[in-house]
Structure formats: structure tokens, C-alpha cells
């Protein structure tokens, strides 16, 4: 509960004017999660969105990395 009218500021959906490289679509799939993940990128990083069982958001970020020594 937020007094003083704080509840009057609604959340907005994700922005449509994200910075360059954040809204490129990709085709990868990941296991788990409760809904079909949506795939985007932030620069060289692939983004996979999921919802946890209790409804909280989970985002997995993945990038091709060199193998560990």
C-alpha cells in the first residue's frame, strides 16, 4: 500500500523504443519456464524471458563465450 497517490502511476509495457540492439529477434529455445520464451538481444547478449511458477519474471542472458582453460 502506497499512500499519497503513489498508486496512480501505472506500469507500462516494455518500451518499443529500446536502444539499438535490444529488440533483435532470435530463434533459440531454452528448457523450463512456464510460457514460451520470447527471444531478444542486448548487443551481443541473447535474452530469453520466462515466468516462474509464482508469476515472477525470470530473464536468462546468454552469450557465446570461449571455453574455460
Amino acid at each position, binding site marked *: 500500500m502506497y499512500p499519497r497517490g503513489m498508486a496512480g502511476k501505472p506500469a507500462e509495457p516494455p518500451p518499443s523504443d529500446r536502444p539499438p540492439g*535490444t529488440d533483435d529477434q532470435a530463434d533459440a529455445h531454452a528448457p523450463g519456464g512456464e510460457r514460451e520464451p520470447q527471444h531478444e538481444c542486448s548487443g*551481443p547478449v541473447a535474452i530469453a524471458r520466462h515466468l516462474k511458477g509464482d508469476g515472477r519474471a525470470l530473464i*536468462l542472458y546468454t552469450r557465446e*563465450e570461449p571455453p574455460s582453460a
Partner: protein
Amino acid sequence: MSELRFSELRGEEVVYAIHRQERTFLPARDHCPLDATLPGRPLTEIPFPSFQIAVFDNRFPAFEAPIGAAEVVVYTDDHDASFATLAPERVEMLMWVWRHRYAELGARADIDYVYIFENRGVEVGVTLHHPHGQIYGYPFLPPVPALELAADRRLGGCAPCALLARELADGRRILFENDSVVVYVPYAARWAYEAHVVMREHRPSLLQCEPDELRALGSALQTLVRGYDALFEERFPYVMAVHQAPTVGAARGAHAAAVAGHGHLHVEFYPPLRTAEKLKYLAGSEQGAGTFISDTLPEESAAELREAIARAT
């Protein structure tokens, strides 16, 4: 959900998140909620057998939609790693993750300020040792960013730009620099080993950084943390605070005129140690009068940190 109360005497918001009293506190090594979920083991916050970087809504949030946000950023699935031991590629990747979260949370009308931070060490209240940071989306402009806006007005332009120029001209407190980033102990540091990592060019936020600058920022942050760890040859506790421009909520709201055009990406570190064994406590002067009393001169701390960074690299 939390309750927000405004303290008239202090002129600041206080957040009551009483549900956080129940949050996980220093769990046993094999019950870490930030580990990956391995076959046959209990479900963790990340229901995948491996991952690189994961971000999720905090289970015990100080803020939550539709009025603010509280997210956890898990740097790796390696429980025993730390920011200092991550591969350089992972640190660079983290900069892109921060950038993405700043863009997405900052575009929300209910969020005035996106604050990325890491608490490291039980000395600063860490409750989970797995390497991670947090992001708060404040539904108001918090006092410290507001003070930075006031500094802009006092100095007649971008305060971090002006202070960076002063530090470069003086030179005694510079720890190291690269093409994009300068790292120094500030002239009026509150903490014995406080350091600021400042973008050399005027970049209001991660969104205005070029890819090379993001890489340089990540590298500088890691170099500093490795230096911290070398200082007393133990994992060094700190609060790492990423300061950027206020976001859409502030730009649309009561602060619109004050925030327009302001902000300069920099990262401040507040380590609580003043020696290898002694903590700096916020006591009478700091809490009751708001004035820090330091036992250490910033120039002397900078010299110690330069030596530690040299040992670590």
C-alpha cells in the same frame, strides 16, 4: 507490498517492506537459492541446470510493479565465484545486461530512478554469498541522485565532468585510467577506501555508451575489485553503486525540470573497512549530524590502493 512514508523532518521517503524480514538469510552452501537447479536437487530461483547471467524479480521486494521494481542479477552459476574472478567476457556481458535492465525499467512511467548495485560481504549486510547484484526501480528520486542534481546546479554544469577534470589535474588520487574510464579516490571521500569509476566522456547512462566503453567500464570495475581484494589479501567488502541519469518517471513527474539533461554514468564503491581488521561504523556524527569523520586521507588511501592494484595485475 511495501508502504512508503515521507519523513517531513528529514525530507525523505522511508520504505517499509516488512515481508523482507522473512527473506533467506545465509543459507547452507547446498541450499543456495541462486544456484542452478541440478537434477534431483531442490528447485532454486533459476529452474535450469546451468546459466550464464540470470535476472529475476526479487522474492522479497522492497518495490514491485506497478509501483517500482526490485530485481536480482546473478552473475554466474558458479557459487564460489565473485565479481573479481569472473572471466572478462562475463564482466563485459554483465554491462550489457545492466544496460538492458536500465532501458527496460527506465522506460516505465512508475520508475523515476534505476539503481544498480552490489552488496558484497556480511559487513554490508549480504544474506546470500552467491555472486550477485540487485536493481531497484525507485518510484521516486532518491536523496543521493537528487544531491547529484543539486551538485550540477551548484557547479553550473555536469558535476562529475567537473570533478573528473579536477581529479585529473591534481593527479594524486588517480588509481588508474584507460581510454574510456578514470578511477580515483575522490577528494572528499567519506570512506577510507572509497573509489569512483567515472566515464571519461559525458555519458548520462549505459545507453549512451559505445560497445568499447562498456568493455572498458567492466574491465575497470574488475581491476578495482581485484585491487581491493589484494589490499588486505582477503575478499574485500563493499557497496558498489551505479549512478546514472534519472529515468522516464522522473522526467514526466514533479522532477521533470530538474532532471532534464542531467546524469553522468559513474560507479561508486563504499568499502566499510578502514584497516584490515577494523570497520568504519556510522556513529554519532555520521548518523546524528550527517557528517562523516574519516581517519584516513584520500591521498594516502589512493597510494595504498595503487600498490594493491599493481600487485593484483
